[in-house]
């Protein structure tokens, strides 16, 4: 299943200068869907030129998108804590 929510959190020390941004990715996917449909013919042409199976390419792209789910990146130093999570 593709990720539905992304979280970007930045905590500066002291903690009063902090923010947490929840990105509803499902809305992004819905908005990108018409664009994806519009660019589909171009994508097929590119696949034909590159001699790549378009179905395999779509499946791989989908697998990458699905694989991003549960990714967690946390960087913490003296000044700030940056957290990126894909849920």
């Amino acid at each position: 299943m593709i990720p539905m929510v992304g979280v970007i959190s930045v905590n500066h020390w002291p903690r009063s200068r902090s923010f947490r941004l929840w990105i509803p990715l499902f809305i992004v996917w819905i908005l990108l869907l018409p664009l994806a449909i519009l660019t589909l013919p171009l994508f097929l042409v590119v696949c034909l030129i590159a001699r790549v199976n378009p179905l395999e390419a779509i499946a791989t792209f989908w697998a990458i998108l699905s694989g991003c789910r549960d990714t967690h990146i946390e960087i913490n130093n003296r000044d700030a804590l940056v957290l990126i999570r894909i849920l």
Partner: protein
Amino acid sequence: MNEHRRQILEMLSAGKITADEAERLIAALEKSDAPASVGGASAPAKKAKYLRVLVDAEDGGDPHQGPVKVNIRVPMQLLRAGVRLAGLIPAQARDHVNQALHEKGIPFDINQIRPENLEDLVDQLNELTIDVDVNNKNGYGDEKVKVRVFCE
């Protein structure tokens, strides 16, 4: 495991080892056998779900830098998809990639990354653990960096 036990007994009867040594060897055999028997012989190996990268850097007293901690968790599914993506790279592009890798001194052939080898590759990653400890001296003291890469 019975075969190992028999070998120990044969060594004992041949006088190659003493009774004490034989006892210790059998005890060691039983110990190594214990974890497998707890899970059951037919229990499948637990598959790792994530690749973890932990970096713990101490500043060594440098007032401008400070300690840095990095904690990254990448799902194995993403690695699988990445390997599949490598299979989609056109042949000409692969040659360019191979050439660039060789120029950088990395003797790796990207053509070897194939979807059919994917599961073997990921299974091998399950047992991967890389620990790197670096000690550098800077103007303020010892700078220590610990990097840990493992699967969980």
